[in-house]
C-alpha cells in the first residue's frame, strides 16, 4: 500500500538487513555478468564455438612468431581481402605477410596487431599501410562498422583495465559487446567448435581473407561517406619509418564510376604514397564495402608489387615521399 510519506519510519535493523540481502542479487547479478564477461567472452572457447570465421581469425598477425616477412601489409578490410601475398612475393621475391584487419579492428585498436607482430618477428623491409580512401579519417567511420569483434580482441589482450580505458569515450561499445557476447555464448552452448579449415582460414590463405560475393556491376550502390583525411593520423603511420623499415601509406583503388573518386583523389593527393587508382567495376564485389574479388585481388596485389619494385630500384614516381 502507499506509504504515508509524513509517517515514514526508520527501518528496523532486521528489516534493513532483509532489504539489503534482497538487493544484493539484483545489484550484483548484472555487475557479475559484466565482470565475468570480460574474461569469458574474449576466450578461445567463445571464438571457436561462435564458428565465426572473422572472430576465430581475429588478430591473426599478432599470433605470428618468426614469420619474418620482408613485406608486411597492414590496413583495413580492403587490404585484408584484397592483398594476395603470393602475388607480391612472386613479383618482388620478398616474403610477404598480409596482417590487415577489418575496419572495426583498425579503428578501435589502431596498429596494435602490427606492433605485436613487430615484437615477435624480425623487422620487415617494407610496411605497406593500405586503407580505403574514406578510412584515412578513422573517427568518421565509427558508425559504419561492427565493433564487437574489435572489442573482443582488445579485451583478450593483457591489461584489461587499460583496454577499458581505451574505450572510455564510447562506453556503449563495451555494453553492446557484453550483451551480444553473452547472447552468443548462450546460443552456442552445446555446439561443436569451429572446424580446422575455419580456424586456419587466414593461415591457409597466407593471411588474405578472400570473400565470395557477387560481382559489382554499377556504382549506384556505392555509398562512401565524405570523410576528410587526417594528416595527423597519416603522420602517426609514418612513425614506423625507422629501423631500416620503409613505410608506404596507400589508398586502395576505386571504381572509375565512383562519384567520390575526384573528391578523394584531390583530398589524398600529397598525403599518401600512391595515387587513388581505379580498377574496373567488375573487380569489386557487392558485399557493401567495395572489396575486390579474385580478379581484382590480382590487380591490386600487382599494383602494390610495382610500387615496391620501384622503391627497391630507388625510382619512386608517385607520392610525395
Amino acid at each position, binding site marked *: *500500500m*502507499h506509504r504515508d*510519506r*509524513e509517517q*515514514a519510519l526508520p*527501518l528496523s535493523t532486521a*528489516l*534493513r538487513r*532483509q*532489504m*539489503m*540481502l*534482497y*538487493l*544484493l*542479487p*539484483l*545489484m*550484483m*547479478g*548484472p*555487475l557479475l*555478468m*559484466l565482470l565475468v564477461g570480460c574474461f569469458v567472452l574474449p576466450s578461445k572457447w567463445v571464438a571457436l564455438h561462435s564458428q565465426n570465421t572473422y572472430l576465430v581469425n581475429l588478430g591473426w598477425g599478432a599470433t605470428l612468431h618468426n614469420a619474418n616477412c620482408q613485406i608486411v601489409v597492414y590496413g583495413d578490410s580492403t587490404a585484408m581481402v584484397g592483398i594476395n601475398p603470393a602475388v607480391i612475393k612472386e613479383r618482388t621475391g620478398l616474403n610477404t605477410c598480409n596482417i590487415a584487419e577489418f575496419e572495426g579492428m583498425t579503428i578501435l585498436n589502431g596498429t596494435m596487431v602490427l606492433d605485436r607482430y613487430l615484437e615477435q618477428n624480425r623487422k620487415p623491409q617494407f610496411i605497406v599501410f593500405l586503407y580505403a580512401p574514406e578510412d584515412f579519417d578513422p573517427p568518421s567511420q565509427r558508425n559504419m562498422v561492427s565493433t564487437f569483434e574489435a572489442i573482443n580482441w582488445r579485451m583478450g589482450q593483457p591489461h584489461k583495465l587499460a583496454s577499458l580505458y581505451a574505450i572510455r569515450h564510447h*562506453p*556503449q561499445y*563495451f*555494453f*553492446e559487446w*557484453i*550483451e*551480444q557476447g*553473452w*547472447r552468443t555464448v*548462450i546460443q552456442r552452448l552445446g555446439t561443436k567448435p569451429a572446424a580446422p579449415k575455419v580456424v586456419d582460414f587466414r593461415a591457409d590463405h597466407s593471411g588474405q581473407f578472400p570473400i565470395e560475393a557477387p560481382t559489382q556491376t554499377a556504382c549506384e550502390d556505392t555509398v562512401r561517406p565524405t570523410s576528410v583525411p587526417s594528416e595527423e593520423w597519416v603522420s602517426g603511420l609514418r612513425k614506423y619509418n625507422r629501423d631500416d623499415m620503409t613505410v608506404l601509406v596507400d589508398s586502395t583503388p576505386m571504381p572509375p564510376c565512383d562519384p567520390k573518386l575526384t573528391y578523394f583523389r584531390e583530398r589524398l593527393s600529397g598525403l599518401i604514397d600512391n595515387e587513388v587508382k581505379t580498377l574496373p567495376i567488375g573487380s569489386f564485389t557487392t558485399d557493401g564495402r567495395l572489396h575486390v574479388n579474385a580478379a581484382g585481388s590480382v590487380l591490386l596485389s600487382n599494383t602494390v608489387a610495382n610500387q615496391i619494385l620501384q622503391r627497391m630500384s630507388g625510382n619512386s614516381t608517385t607520392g610525395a615521399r
Partner: protein
Amino acid sequence: MLFSSGIFIFLFLPASLIGYQLLSRLGRPALLMWLTLASLFFYGYWNPSYLILLIASILMNFLFARKLGEGRSEQSQSRWLIIAITANLSLLVYYKYLFPLLNFFHEHGAIHRSFVDVMLPLGISFFTFTQIAYLIDLRQRIAKRQGLLPYSVFVTFFPHLIAGPIIHPRELMPQLDEGRIRGLRVDDLALGLSWFIMGLTKKVLIADRVAPLSDVLFAHPYAAGISTAWLGSLAYAMQLYFDFSGYSDMALGLARMFSLEFPFNFNSPYKAQGIIEFWQRWHMTLSRYLNEYLYTPILRWVNGRRMDAGKKVTRKASATLEGFTTMVAFPVLTTMFIAGIWHGAGIQFLVFGVLHGLYLTVNHAWRIFTPQGHRFHKKIPASILVVLNFLCVLVSLVFFRSANVHDAVYLLGTMSGIHGAGPAFGNFAFLEGIPTTSKFLVHTSTTLLALAICFFIVWALPNTQEILGQLRADETRMPSLLPRLTWKPTAVWSVGLAALFCFVILLLDASTRFLYFQF
C-alpha cells in the same frame, strides 16, 4: 539517454544514486542541486544544444511564476498567465508544429517553398505541459511559489522529464520540502529497483520483440494481406502497451529509488470495458491533465453561456439531445481534437483524437441515456465489452501508427477484407527485414503464440502496481488468474528478478527508443 541502455543502467543510475546518498549529509539544497545537475546531464547526453532550451524554458517560467500567486492583483495575474501560456505554447508550436504545417501547405500548393523540419527536442511537450500546469495552479492558488532549485527538480527530475508522467506541483513539491527529502532508503531502493526491472522487462523482452512486425507492416501497408494486416496491427497494439507501460513502470521505479512517489500512469487499459474507462487507465496523467486544463475550462465556458441564455446545466438537462450536444459532445470532441494534435503534426493524429472523441461521446451517451440498472446493461457480458473496446482502440491505433491517413484507411480496408485475402502472412516479402532477435515473427504459428502470450499478460495477469502492492487504500485488485501474486522482498523474488534483469540486459543492444519520446 535511454532507461533501457547499458550506459543508463550501469553508469548513470548508480552514479546518481551514490551521489545522492553522499550529498544527503549536506542537506536539502545539496540534494536538490544534485538531482537537477544529474537530470540536466541526463537530458544533455542526448543533445547538449537542447539543454539551453530546457534551461531557458525553466528560467522563463520561473520568472513568470514570480508574477503569479499571492501578493499580486487578480488582473495582473490573469494577464501574466496568458502571456506565460502563450510563450510556452509558442515554443511548442515552433518546434513541433510550425515546419510540418508549412510543409503541409507546401505539399498542397498553398506556399511555394518547402522547409527543413527542426529536430524536435526530446520531451518538449512534457516539460512544457508540466510548467503550464504549475503556472495555472499558482494562479488558482492551488500551488505555492517555489524557489529555483525545487522548481528545477520538479521540471527536470529525469524519471519523468522525457515522457511523463505529467506531474502536478502538489504531487512532487511537498516531497521536496525540508525534512521530507533525505538520503536513500533501502526499502524504497528495493521496491524501486524491482519496479524498474519489471518495466524494463516489458519494454525489452516484449515491446521491442514484437515491434519489428508492426514496423514492417506500417512501412509497407499496401503489400499486406488480411492476416498480415491483423497480426501487424495487433503487434503494434501490444508494442505500444508494453512500451509505454514499461516506460511508466521504470519512471515510477526510478523515482521510488530516490524515495519520491509519482502518480500511476498506466492501469491495465486493455482491461477497460468502455472508452471512458480506457482513458482513465491509459496515460492517466495526460487524461487528468486534459480533463483539468482543457475539458473542465471548456465545460465551464459552455455552462456559463447556457446560464447566460437562461438554460439549465443540470444532469437532467444533459440527458436531452440539445443539452447532451452542448454540455457533453462539444467539450469531449474539442478536448480530444486537441489531444490528437498534441500527439503529433499529422492528420492521422487528428483523426486518432477525433475518433476517440466520438468513441467517448458514444460512451457518454450510453452512460447518460441508459443509466445504471438499465435493462440493456446486464445483457452484454464484460468480456464482450472488453474485446469490443479493444477493437475500437485498435482501429484508432492504426491511424496513430500509420504514416498518413491514406495508409491507415487502406490498412483498415485490408483488415476488413475489402481488398480480398491478399498474400498469406508467410508470403509477406518484408518479413525478411525482421532482425534475428525477433525471428519468431516470421512464422504464423510462433507469431500467434507470441501475441497470445501478450494477450494473456494483458488480460489475465495482475498489473505491476497490483503485484507490487502499491494500490491506494481505496483501490482493489482487478480480477486476474493470479490474484495472490504479490511481490515481497524475499530470496525467491530477489533471485527471480535478478535472473530476469540479467536476461533482459542481454537484449539491451537490440532495444529501441520509447514510442512516447516522439511526443
